[in-house]
């Protein structure tokens, strides 16, 4: 699975650390880290929570061209 650089960039724009995002969506930091590294495929519920916190759509963060 490819690295999710869009998620990393969106998090950086909001000046959030992985720990901040993890706390906001209610998961562990290692889960956010694994998603960004492409090592974990999150459920649609977690994707939606991340999108809400970062103010992005599912396509913007999780759609692969």
């Amino acid at each position: 699975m490819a690295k999710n650089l869009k998620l990393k960039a969106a998090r950086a724009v909001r000046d959030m650390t992985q720990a901040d995002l993890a706390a906001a969506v209610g998961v562990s930091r290692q889960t956010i880290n694994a998603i960004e590294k492409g090592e974990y495929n999150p459920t649609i519920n977690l994707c939606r929570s991340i999108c809400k916190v970062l103010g992005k759509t599912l396509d913007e963060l999780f759609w692969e061209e």
Partner: protein
Amino acid sequence: MKLKEFWSRNNLDEMQQQTLLNIEARSFWLLWGMLLAALIIQSLCGFTMREMAAEWIVFMVGCVYTVGACIRAGIWDRHFTADKKTNFLLSLAGGAVIAIWSYVKFSEFGWKSGLLMAGITAVTTILLCFALLQLCAAMYKKRHTELENPKEETDNHENE
């Protein structure tokens, strides 16, 4: 009440939950294999059925629960399909393993006795395994069909 709250509470997120399930699955198969190995070694060392009863009961309860739960969920196997040919080949493999075990166990009475017992137990195992696999496969197919064709909540759009 507190116990109920304790069991319903989950400290893990979805990835940790999935990781824990993988760890538990590997642990299950490790324990299953080691328990089977212990039973085989004990039987070859001359332990009586009474001495092996506890391990055997634990092993069989685990196996029966796993098979029952899989059939109930309409799941057969990751690799094998539920058809006659596969079931027969698996039964043959089981028969071969039992034949080797029988030969090792009964060859102390002479190689002829060993071979005879190996043949008898192999044929019996193949027949029993095949019958049991066919029965389980039939139950699985029935359950799978039920789950694939739910009676309630028919989706009208599917037929359009």
